[in-house]
């Protein structure tokens, strides 16, 4: 019996806490993706690259001597600008075409290609390391947990709660949801739909950027990190249900737990295939994912 | 005479909404059977159940004696049951001729799939026949999307007839039509039934049209069958009059 307790305490719990810290960042990224889809009906294939840019921005800002905390605040603001410009300058150009779905998919795919190479040009192909701003560990349950990971969990959790409140409890959120539900009606009610679209895209991109900053000290920063992460982000969104905030939250936490716990038993090479396999199964059995569209949380 | 279509106890539920509840009726071969009812009566759901678009939760559909309950649309066509769509469901990016050819290809029964199109002569002959019958010859090479509303409706019916079905399901064929177009469609439908012996099941909103055209009428109300009979019988039925309160019969 004590063996099981020990296993729980020393093996499972740490993995779960680790998974939770990653999970929080994955949820933030998935939230951005699902909000962009829920409102704009756009599949943002470049979402992974925005995540990478967030991480690289943090590296660059820190290199100027700025503290991590300022970088954490500044990066999402800069990312929001980038997202706004991308939406107005590129996505709007194909938005009104009949083949909108395919074209935005291809467009964001092209943007991803450009951004990935741009990062390589700007920062080189070698991985970069970012020092965690908080060092040391705290003792809990007889184990030591890295303080930075605990911070990520708390900060990320607070941010997720903030997003939830923003979308479902504020009038701004109501405006966004209305525009998602019925664009023409909202426009005729005086809602500046164009602005809402660009703003929402910017918001989603900013969330990806924050995820990048948060995870940068945990994983290293390299140019293909976006592509590696985009599959898990899409898996989460699809399993949770495209456009569903509740879905992104639950699926994000669940899947990262599956990933951490399974890493105890299988080699990390199989972790992606496992997640992908789950995504395919969900798509085959319940194509709409766990939950429905935006507004139904 | 055996009915060509026999629906028994068919039901379907969408969540808590019982769209169709235990409906049964028969349609005779070579006759025009109509399903009418006020808004929300469940006509569309019934139609979708029979045409294979949705599966019933209970009940059965028999076509010419064979059980076709829950079969997919492409299987139903093999039995001889074809449907047309209320919102024209054509291949708008393709020319009229191609729309008809795709539908007529069924007549080739899988022959010549990998042969040049010219070899599918049965299909080509049928296309020609339909172009004449539905007065679409001068629009044959136009993209279906560029046709007028009336022409699209005609093409829609032509496409659903191309496979020479034994029964045609018409989903609100005069929806949104002008008076003139409605009269034209009425004579078209009557012609199909009387001249070609085609069995027709139609769901309609235009009660006047139904009364003039049909041999047999089924009235639905709130998901259930309210009454059935000849147009005269149905018109005289007080329950039907009550359901349509305010509408002329």
């Amino acid at each position, binding site marked *: 019996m004590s063996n099981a307790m020990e296993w729980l305490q020393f093996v499972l719990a740490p993995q779960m806490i680790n998974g939770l810290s990653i999970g929080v960042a994955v949820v933030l990224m998935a939230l951005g993706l699902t909000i962009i889809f829920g409102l704009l009906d756009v599949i943002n294939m470049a979402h992974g690259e925005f995540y990478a840019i967030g991480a690289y921005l943090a590296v660059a800002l820190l290199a100027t001597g700025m503290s991590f905390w300022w970088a954490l605040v500044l990066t999402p603001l800069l990312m929001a600008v980038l997202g706004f410009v991308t939406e107005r300058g590129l996505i709007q*150009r*194909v938005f009104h*075409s*009949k*083949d909108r779905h*395919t*074209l935005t998919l*291809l*467009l964001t795919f*092209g*943007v991803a*290609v*450009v951004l*990935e190479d741009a990062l*390589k*040009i700007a920062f080189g192909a070698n991985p970069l390391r970012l020092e965690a701003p908080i060092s040391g560990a705290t003792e809990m349950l007889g184990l030591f947990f890295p303080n930075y990971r605990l911070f990520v969990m708390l900060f990320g959790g607070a941010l997720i709660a903030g997003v939830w409140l923003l979308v479902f409890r504020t009038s701004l959120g109501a405006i966004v949801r209305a525009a998602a539900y019925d664009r023409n009606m909202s426009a005729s009610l005086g809602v500046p739909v164009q602005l809402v679209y660009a703003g929402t895209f910017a918001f989603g991109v900013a969330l990806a950027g924050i995820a990048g900053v948060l995870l940068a000290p945990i994983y290293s920063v390299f140019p293909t990190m976006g592509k590696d992460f985009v*599959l898990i982000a*899409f*898996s989460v969104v*699809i399993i949770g249900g495209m456009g569903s905030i509740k879905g992104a939250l639950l699926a994000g936490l669940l899947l990262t737990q599956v990933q951490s716990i399974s890493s105890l038993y299988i080699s990390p*090479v199989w972790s*992606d*295939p496992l997640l*992908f396999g789950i*995504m*395919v199964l969900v*798509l*085959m059995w319940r*194509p709409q994912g766990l939950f429905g569209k935006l507004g139904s949380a | 005479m055996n009915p060509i279509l026999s629906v028994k106890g068919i039901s379907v539920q969408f969540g808590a909404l019982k769209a169709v509840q235990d409906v049964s009726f028969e349609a005779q071969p070579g006759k025009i059977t109509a399903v009418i009812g006020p808004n929300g009566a469940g006509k569309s759901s019934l139609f979708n159940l029979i*045409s294979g678009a949705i599966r019933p939760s209970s009940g059965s559909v028999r076509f010419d004696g064979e059980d076709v309950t829950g079969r*997919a649309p*492409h299987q139903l*066509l*093999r039995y001889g049951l*074809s449907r047309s*769509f209320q919102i024209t*469901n054509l*291949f*708008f*990016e*393709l*020319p009229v*001729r*191609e729309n008809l*050819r*795709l*539908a007529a*290809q069924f007549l080739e029964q899988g022959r*010549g*799939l*990998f*042969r*040049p*199109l010219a070899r599918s002569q049965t299909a080509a002959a049928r296309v020609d026949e339909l172009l004449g019958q539905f007065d679409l010859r001068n629009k044959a*090479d136009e*993209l279906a*999307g*560029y046709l007028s*509303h009336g022409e699209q409706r005609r093409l829609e019916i032509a496409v659903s007839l191309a*496979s020479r079905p034994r029964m045609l399901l018409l989903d609100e064929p005069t929806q949104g039509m002008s008076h003139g177009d409605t009269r034209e469609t009425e004579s078209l439908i009557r012609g199909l039934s009387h001249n070609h012996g085609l069995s027709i099941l139609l769901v309609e909103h235009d009660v006047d049209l139904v009364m003039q055209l049909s041999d047999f009428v089924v009235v639905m109300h709130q998901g259930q069958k309210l009454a059935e009979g000849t147009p005269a019988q149905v018109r005289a039925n007080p329950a039907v009059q009550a359901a349509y309160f305010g509408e002329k019969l």
Partner: protein
Amino acid sequence: MSTPASSSTIGPRGGALATASSERPRRSAATWLAILFFAGALLFGGIALALGDVFYLRLATEALIFGGLALSVDLLLGRVGLLPLGQALFFGLGAYVSALVLKNWSDSFWLALGVTLAFSAVAGLIGGLIAIRAKGVYFALISFGLAQVLSKVVYNTRELGASDGIIGVPSANIMWGVNSATPSGFFLVVLAFIGALYLVLRYLMDTPVGRQLDAIRTNEHRVSFLGEDPWRYKLGAFVAAACIAGCSGALYPMLRGFVSPELMFFQVSGNAVINVIVGGTGTLIGPLYGSAILTGLRSVVGSFTTHHHIVIGVLFVLVVILMPRGLIGYATPALQRWLDARRNQKENR
């Protein structure tokens, strides 16, 4: 009522289809553009041979091999309407199978190709059964995911050479002493192969089977009400595309003497999609043009900088926004108009 006011911005226009169905003995613009491509390729080969060049011949052969991959993408994207973001999976698998056959069994070109064909058909069937149920972005992601996952597995498999891949693949014997080691000889063989593929696909598009694929792309819902099960056609197209990609991939080790997991990476799938869009989705010859032009461009730009991806990427984004029907997508109707005008002139004399 619906109008195709802007028509489909990707894929063959109804107009082109209308012309094809009333085919006259005189050649259409699409045919002329195809003749131009293959004649141009032959001319290129002749000049290169005369100049004793090896590098450009091999580069052109590579462009043709990737053109085959582009054709497989176009079959799915331009004809069925499914976007495959992981077609390199079949290309790479085909390359590996071919390399293994050539290295361990026999250096026969035909055997390598035959085994690859069989293998690709099976792989395509399995992949298709998983992927075909999905549409739109879901299909794209499953395709992407399959390639990501399997390429990682191959990357980590020591028996397949892990990250180094398989090297030392002998050249393949084709016939009458021609083998893949001779640059000009193999260039012609690959050109013939790709030409044959193109002709078969072009032929199929005017058969009931090919037209059914177009119908599925245009309005899948209605297809089932016309008596055909769209799922079967989509699966068939997926398997065919897998075979085309696989057999094209089989030619790669014959050209370069090695295979590596990179052949399955997203870069290759992405490039193929870019080649198709830039060349002209649904035109079949467009992807070949796209592959030729962009492979050349990548090589030229690549000789100046390692960052040719961003150049191609920017070009691609511009194409998607400004000319989504691609080069051949615009060139064909323009050329057709010119040809028709010329014919009218001749007839009026």
